[in-house]
């Protein structure tokens, strides 16, 4: 059981975490902010939770859509794989030099892409983000 104050049934004003290094001035500020958050909670209207039946329908539809998307992705993957393997096989049978050049170019492009994305991430000071 986590120690947070976010229990759904919680009614009282959540108290900010008491840390030893928080000064009294900071604590006052934090309390003021927490009170503001609670005022917002109470005042701003929001839609009520949908019925379970409606949510079940949403879940069924979403699962169906995901399954369909996954199937399409798999099909695309197989098609691309087929084109790549077929193309490479054709290259080997016709010209070893062309095959070597193609493999080298692909390898260099992959390295370039990796290096480029590393630089971009470093520039932004970003970290990987889950989608």
């Amino acid at each position, binding site marked *: 059981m*986590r*120690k*947070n*104050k*976010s229990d*759904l049934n919680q009614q009282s004003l*959540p108290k*900010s*975490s008491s840390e030893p290094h928080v000064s009294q*001035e*900071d604590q006052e*500020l*934090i309390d*003021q*902010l*927490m*009170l*503001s*958050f609670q*005022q*917002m*909670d*109470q*005042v*701003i*209207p*929001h*839609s*009520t*939770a*949908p*019925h*379970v*039946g409606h*949510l*079940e329908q*949403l*879940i*069924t539809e*979403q*699962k169906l859509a*995901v399954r369909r998307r996954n199937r399409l992705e798999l099909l695309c993957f197989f098609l691309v794989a087929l084109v790549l393997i077929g193309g490479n096989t054709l290259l080997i049978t016709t010209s070893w030099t062309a095959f070597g050049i193609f493999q080298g170019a692909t390898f260099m492009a992959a390295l370039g892409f990796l290096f480029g994305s590393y630089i971009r991430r470093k520039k932004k000071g970003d*970290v*990987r*983000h*889950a*989608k």
Partner: protein
Amino acid sequence: MDEQQRMNLAIRGDDQALAQLLQEHYTFLMKYLIKVTMNPSLAEDLVQETMLKCIEKISYYNGSSKFSSWMITIATRLYIDMMRKRKVEQRWQEQEQALRGVQWHMQQHQEAWTDAIDALSRLRYDMRLPILLKHYYGYAYDEIAEMMDIPQGTVKSRIYNGLQQLRKELMPNAKE
């Protein structure tokens, strides 16, 4: 049936159990997103997106954290991704409009639009988020780091800088 049992059933593909979990946590998620975005209509869109993502990813949920924590992790990441994709100008205009709406609602309920709320609304979202998660929801630094997918040190510095910035706005005469 308790939450743990429902979670286990939902992970195994029980649609009814998942629907019940989503319904129970709907208000919690909505309130969280209203505080994060300070924009009720944006919060509503994000709730929908979060629920769809939860349905999609439920089989990956390992049950090590509370369902509510898992949900707000997904919601937080969706919000951050969305904010990164939007242009600063567009963000600013939308936020201004939403804030006027929030201000109006507060006045309707005889709640004062305090300096604290105003300062919070002006604070950058990437600073408001960790402050909210740390001090309102009581998450630990490592949990916030995991939720926002940033290093723990960044969480600490954002909370510190965010509070400093708020202090400057709210208590201009206070010592640094």
